[in-house]
């Protein structure tokens, strides 16, 4: 069995995180923005698990578990907010939700 350097896992996590940031910056749809946030959380989870392996401890797994719980709660509340936005404005485009700007 050939071993994989831990830094490869961390690099993969970095790439996924940057892709999540890119989605958050460049997309217009609220739901897709939300999915980009989930992508970033997943990338961070991967580095938590990698560090957990590196230290041979279980703590990183606990943090990953807690991040999952927070992500689930965030998804529930965020999607309810998206539903409320859609009901009051009839759009999912983030650029049209700008009444606080003027």
């Amino acid at each position, binding site marked *: 069995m050939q071993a994989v350097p831990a830094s490869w*896992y961390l690099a993969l*996590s970095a790439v996924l995180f940057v892709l999540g940031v890119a989605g958050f910056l460049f997309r217009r749809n609220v*739901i897709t923005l939300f*999915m980009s946030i989930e992508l970033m959380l997943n990338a961070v989870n991967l580095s938590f698990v990698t560090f957990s392996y590196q230290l041979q401890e*279980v703590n990183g797994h606990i943090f990953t578990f807690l991040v999952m719980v927070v992500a689930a709660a965030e998804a529930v509340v965020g999607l*309810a907010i998206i*539903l409320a936005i859609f009901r009051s404005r009839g759009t999912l485009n983030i650029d049209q939700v700008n009444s606080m700007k003027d």
Partner: protein
Amino acid sequence: MDVILFLIFAVLAVGCAVNVVLQPHPIASAVSLIGVMGSLAVLYLLLGAEFVAAAQVIVYAGAVMVLFIFVIMLLNAGREERRGRSYVVRLLGLPLLVSLLGLLAVLARGLGGDTAVSFGNFTAGAGEVGRALFTRYLLPFEITSLLILVAILGAMVLGRKEID
């Protein structure tokens, strides 16, 4: 074998993540995101995190993404229009992203050290995770239940019909 599995699922994860960002239709993004989460679950298994891999599949790829797809279908979300992007993002977005990636890559090289990951050297199943969760991390775990309660109440308040 480890390297081959890592490369297959890393490429799959990055490809699906690129697809999440590029697809114009939200439902295609959601399905690609499920691909990312599935390949990450395999990588967690390679890292010896059995419990986290199972939770990833059940909680993320299962519950959270079902919620997303449900909302996409409920709102009948179509293709998004791609114009009217702000000048700041158009000018600075890509350079900032590339520099962020460079920074994170340097950090990854530094923090990775000379640890080599080989399957089977370190495994933490549900037993170890549960022992840590219910002894040392008992208080955060209990606070988590409060968080979920608040989230449920918030979703109910936000999701109900408007009161006249």
